[in-house]
């Protein structure tokens, strides 16, 4: 196991905020994600087709943006604060284009009892923001977190 300190449900503060580092989304990211997911939609893979589209160029898969933000936020949230995902509600509000740099702004918005007595559920509201300050994705995630006192 990693040597990170264990964070319990009781340690998570309502209203706690996190800001992730930035990350530039590259053409390579999109190519690898297309291969990994098997989603070769022209939106992500056909530069010529996309010249004539609403976006004017290839855009990142929405789920690639979601996956990258998960990794970015993992880097700033201490220990196991956000345990396994229980639920996601998500909106894709704008495109992430090749060369865009995104970061995540997140806040703990709810803490409630879990279905099992030793667990709680933490809700984190997240916004994925690009280099122009535009929110390109947003939503909330529910996480199952263990309690210190069972």
């Amino acid at each position: 196991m990693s040597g990170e300190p264990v964070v319990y449900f009781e340690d998570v503060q309502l209203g706690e905020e996190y800001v992730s580092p930035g990350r530039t989304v590259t053409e390579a990211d999109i190519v690898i994600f297309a291969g990994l997911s098997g989603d070769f939609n022209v939106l992500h893979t056909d530069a010529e087709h996309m010249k004539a589209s609403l976006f004017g160029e290839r855009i990142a898969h929405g789920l690639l943006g979601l996956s990258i933000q998960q990794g970015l936020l993992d880097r700033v949230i201490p220990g196991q604060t956000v345990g396994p995902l229980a639920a996601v509600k998500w909106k894709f509000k704008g495109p992430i284009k090749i060369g865009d740099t995104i970061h995540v702004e997140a806040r703990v918005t709810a803490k409630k009892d879990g279905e099992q007595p030793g667990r709680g559920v933490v809700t984190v509201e997240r916004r994925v923001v690009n280099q122009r300050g535009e929110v390109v994705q947003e939503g909330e995630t529910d996480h199952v977190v263990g309690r210190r006192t069972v």
Partner: protein
Amino acid sequence: MARAQAERRLYFEDVQVNVPLETPGITLTEAHVALFASLTTSRPGEPATVPDLLPLCVSSGLGWRVPQPPLVVLAFMGFEWRFFKPTRVGDTIRSVSKTVAKRSMKDGGVVIEERQILNQRDEVVQSGRLTLLVAKRPQT
């Protein structure tokens, strides 16, 4: 000269409501997990555990491996998703989906898809609803 027929596509008008579609399966491997981890720079979990978001990502590609032509999706608008069981390396997942609602708009139409991801034991590991903006058939 004979020319290969352009790829057939399904448009908003072609979408049928409440017709279930099952995809073939895919076995999730350590290679998938390593690629996903390097792509997303996720914190490593237990080695045999598949990251929560990976089955959802892979299910979007499974939708391309069915007998019917792909839907002309203009944009993925959003989704609501729940995670019921962990997926481990070696598990084989597939998805079963159906359109539960469609709504015509000025440009294109909105399609709501219900999707379940099942494993080799037919357990539902994840499921939810996806909202897609789909193109209408071009007027000729």
